[in-house]
């Protein structure tokens, strides 16, 4: 028997924010896959040229761009400790990405071949994941 019976609180706002984020992210990723495959199919079957080809190449970015407001909303609605961890890990990831991209830019000047812009995205996401794990462990 509990010493102090707890009142029934409303749904924890942090839990609700996480649910909204997960649902939004899943819908955006599903839309991305649909648009991506539709775009690939259209380009293969109709081989559009010129402006339309660029529009189709960029079409999968529309559902991906939706992840930004979904993420911003989650950041604003979640609790202060989660915001602290997200801010710290993103700051570390931004620093690592800036350092590595500048390093390779100097190496390009010295003769190394130019890399795809995808590498910057990959480094940012990987360093964010590693920084997030490190920051989480620090507060345990």
């Amino acid at each position, binding site marked *: 028997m*509990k*010493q*102090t019976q*707890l009142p029934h*609180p409303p749904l*924890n*706002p*942090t*839990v609700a924010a*996480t649910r909204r984020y997960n649902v939004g992210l899943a819908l955006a990723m599903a839309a991305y896959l649909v648009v991506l495959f539709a775009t690939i199919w259209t380009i293969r079957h109709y081989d559009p040229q010129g402006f339309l080809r660029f529009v189709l190449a960029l079409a999968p970015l529309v559902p991906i761009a939706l992840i930004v407001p979904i993420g911003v909303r989650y950041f604003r609605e*979640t*609790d*202060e*400790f*989660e915001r*602290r961890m997200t801010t710290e890990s993103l700051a570390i990831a931004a620093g690592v990405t800036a350092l590595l991209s500048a390093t390779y830019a100097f190496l390009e000047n010295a003769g190394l071949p130019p890399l795809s812009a995808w590498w910057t995205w990959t480094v940012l996401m990987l360093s964010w994941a590693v920084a997030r794990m490190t920051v*989480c462990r*620090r*507060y*345990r």
Partner: protein
Amino acid sequence: MPSLPVKNRLKVLRAEHDWSQAELADQLGVARQTIVALEAGKYAPSLPLAFRISRVFSKPVEEIFDADSAE
């Protein structure tokens, strides 16, 4: 200046009330991992969260948090 940990009696008070970390987290509207970090003394809460904790335990803030440990 690095953020200094603030010692607190959160774990003891929670045990006195026989609440789980998840139950306390729901009362405060935060994630369970926030309670873990608070109890471990690794995270100092904001003033609004400290006041919510104070209300939940019906105790003044200075009886829950050790102000001297932050100096």
